[in-house]
């Protein structure tokens, strides 16, 4: 195939949702044998654009050319006909079916379904690109990374030669991300076009050949990756120069605040989620928690916040004068009634931390609505708080009465963090506080967390990006399969060290 004709050409594509212009006259070329990174802040229209290529949305205006021919992509099946496959952030797999069943689901092939033949074809695809998939494994038995692999194989099985991946590494460990990149390089070598949406600049530098940048629904420009650097890409994305360094002020008078001793937690199905976890979180310090996703981080934070049933162990809240109280067995109401100012920014922002259909004021009220006597709520204080948060954290919202689900990811997180720190906490628990956030919003969050630390708050920061954990945290606790693999000094630890401890208890050196 001639490399000079773009696999996909997007011409003047415009798409709006109500009064929000998500894509404004975008022009973009995607070539075969190339990995294109699509960069942009939250809400800049990357996913919208890709969803139009994969038939989920239909453009209001403009045109899509495939191999130089005008094409109409009105439904996902059209996209497959043109060889476009998209791997969404949230996987679209049927949990109770096997890999092979998921892969052929919805395909109308003549004759009877022969799962063995399907399995052989899957194995061929895997051999060609270096995947590992067991066609007969049920999806619910799979790790996140395996599910993602199934999604990619599903696209390839359907003959996709233009592959779009929406933030594929957000849920992967560094090692899994490396494996994915190796596969993507094999696809490039096989002449496929690959588009990857990501926020992580070091990944862009590592994997892509060309970067295209969107800003507020407009196409800013594209540039060969080797001719640019992280700083320049960030400036393009944000529209002005920004600093990429994360501050790490020295701990302020650290004293034990939360003491966790021998904590053991079982999940609903009786599986041990945390086993004999012991650590101390100090005031005026950020304690990072690293680990492969789903190895006990969620249970740990929820146990401290009084949302998780605990099997064994103790969690003590220690006052400055040394007196302490036990948090286990208390629900969030009882914990706050004891005078423990504990704030929690959960992983699931709209499903747990906020109510998506309520507006900013009502969401601010979640923590405080019981205040005051009488049967009625007082919305004046929450409205004032909402105004303050919007102003101080620079939340981009049409009004205070906009439902928070309409805000972009970064703004949602600012609202949540803003509310949680407004109650002047002494303990701040955060889970994946910057997941899915662009550089600019991420730095706003880091600064807010640092400010809390400097005012003497004990911060627990569960993160997935090791670079950030190493730059931000004073100490890093590494979890491995629900157990403490070790606690490292954030100033001296290395990425490799943490990575090893995440996969092996204690991080034993490899002997090879």
């Amino acid at each position, binding site marked *: 195939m001639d490399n000079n004709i773009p696999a996909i*050409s997007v*011409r003047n594509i415009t798409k709006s*949702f*109500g*009064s*929000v212009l998500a894509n404004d006259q975008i022009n973009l070329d995607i070539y075969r044998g190339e990995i294109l990174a699509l960069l942009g802040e939250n809400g800049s229209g990357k996913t919208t654009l890709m969803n139009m290529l994969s038939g989920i*949305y*239909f453009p*209001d*205006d403009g*045109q899509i*050319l495939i191999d*130089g*021919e*005008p*094409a*109409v992509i*009105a439904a996902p099946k059209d996209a497959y*006909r043109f060889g476009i496959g998209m791997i969404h952030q949230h996987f679209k797999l049927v949990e109770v079916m096997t890999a092979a069943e998921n892969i052929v689901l919805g395909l109308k092939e003549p004759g009877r379904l022969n799962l063995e033949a399907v399995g052989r074809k899957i194995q061929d695809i895997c051999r060609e690109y270096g995947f590992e998939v067991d066609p007969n494994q049920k999806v619910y038995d799979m790790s996140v990374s395996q599910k993602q692999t199934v999604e990619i194989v599903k696209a390839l099985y359907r003959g996709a030669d233009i592959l779009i991946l929406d933030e594929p590494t957000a849920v992967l460990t560094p090692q899994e991300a490396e494996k994915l990149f190796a596969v993507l390089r094999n696809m490039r070598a096989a002449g496929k076009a690959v588009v990857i949406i990501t926020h992580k600049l070091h990944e862009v530098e590592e994997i892509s050949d060309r970067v295209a940048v969107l800003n507020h629904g407009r196409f800013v420009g594209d540039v060969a990756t080797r001719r640019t650097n992280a700083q320049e890409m960030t400036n393009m994305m944000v529209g002005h120069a920004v600093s990429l360094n994360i501050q790490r002020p020295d701990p302020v008078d650290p004293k034990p605040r939360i003491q966790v001793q021998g904590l053991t937690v079982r999940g609903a199905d009786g599986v041990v989620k945390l086993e004999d976890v012991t650590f101390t979180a100090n005031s005026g310090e950020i304690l990072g928690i690293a680990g492969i996703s789903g190895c006990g981080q969620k249970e740990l934070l929820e146990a401290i*916040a009084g*949302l998780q049933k605990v099997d064994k162990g103790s969690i003590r809240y220690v006052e400055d004068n040394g007196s302490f109280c036990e948090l286990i067995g208390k*629900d*969030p*109401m009882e914990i*706050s009634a004891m005078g423990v100012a504990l704030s*929690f920014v*959960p992983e*699931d922002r709209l*499903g*747990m*931390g*906020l*109510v*998506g*259909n*309520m507006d900013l004021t*009502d969401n601010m*009220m*979640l*923590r405080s*609505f*019981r205040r005051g006597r009488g*049967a*009625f*709520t007082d919305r004046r204080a929450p409205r004032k708080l909402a105004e303050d948060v919007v102003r101080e954290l620079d939340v981009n919202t049409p009004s205070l009465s906009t439902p928070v689900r*309409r805000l972009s990811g970064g703004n949602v997180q600012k609202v949540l963090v803003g509310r949680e720190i407004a109650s002047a906490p002494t303990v701040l628990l955060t889970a994946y506080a910057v997941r899915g956030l662009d550089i600019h919003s991420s730095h706003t969050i880091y600064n807010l967390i640092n400010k809390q630390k400097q005012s003497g708050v004990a911060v627990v920061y569960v993160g997935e990006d090791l670079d950030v954990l190493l730059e931000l945290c004073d100490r890093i606790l590494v979890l491995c399969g629900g157990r403490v693999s070790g606690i490292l000094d954030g100033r001296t630890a290395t990425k490799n060290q943490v990575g090893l401890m995440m996969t092996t208890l204690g991080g034993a050196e490899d002997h090879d």
Partner: protein
Amino acid sequence: MTKPRTNPLFHISKRKEITLRESASIRAGAILLALAACALVTTALTGENPIAVYGTMWHGAFGTTRKIWILLQNMALLLCVSLAVTPAFKMRFWNIGAEGQTLMGGLATAACMILLGDKLPNPVLIPLMFVLSCAAGAVWGGIPAVCKAKWGTNETLFTLMMNYVATQLVAYFVIVWEVPKGAGKIGIINQSTEAGWLPQLAGQKYLLNVLIVAVLTGLMYIYLSRSKQGYEIAVVGESERTARYVGIKVEKVIVRTMLLSGALCGLAGFLLVAGTDHTITTTIAGGRGFTAVMVSWLAGFNPLNMVLTSFLLVLLDRGAAEISTDFGLNHAFGDILTGIILFFIIGSEFFARYEIRFRKSAGKEG
């Protein structure tokens, strides 16, 4: 591989927001279209002049003072049941057992009137009837709620089944209390003494019911939008995990809200038996428990809007009844018209949520 060259004629996309004006005009348009469609159907099927048919509908609803009072009374009772189910619906607890809860309230009222009618004076009897009918409805609503809170049972099936139990209970007591023996019905209770009958205000039989429901509408609006409990209901309905995260005791809210919902259904039963019908039958709730679901839903669970939606449904019902008698049409014909109108109104929800965009330019060759 065949490639279509032109863009599709139109495509459908979700609206992100809608102004009040747009939403009002979509709904008004739906009603106009519905009336036009009804006119076509009427002329095609019966040969009657549609304008005359509409005139008759209007007359059936507003023709005389008595008809207006009946309309208001029907509306008040439907609205009362709708107000009752709304807190449960806001909590995403699908209470479709309002019919049974109303019946139980009515049964409690009737029991008081029959058993205590000659023992207690009205000023004692009526408050007692009020309390007991609310309690009976609350128990009927509370049982599925407790089971849902404790064991996660499905509230839709549970409340639905409770309807049948309530109907059978009423059927049983109708036989126990039947007058005269063997009649299979109770007839008007305390016709001579009027013991337990709600008093008439200003000589109007239905005024008290209408006033009680009007006050209830205001109270429910304030309860849902301004009270702490109303806020808890909204949070639990939107996301139980969020509710737990901020320390709301979800089980407690579910049970408390369903007690309230059931008690208000019981109140409707009380108004029905003590205020208007002065008897009890298995069909006394008249399907209001189910129509209320539609009233509440069409109004977006807003008690003030429910005044409009309950009015609309009662108007259609009264008008339809008048047509069938006046034009000698089958009674089902009125139901056909009601069905057509509801179809358009519910269908207009689609256009309020989605918009259809027509292509701007035919696909130009690139």
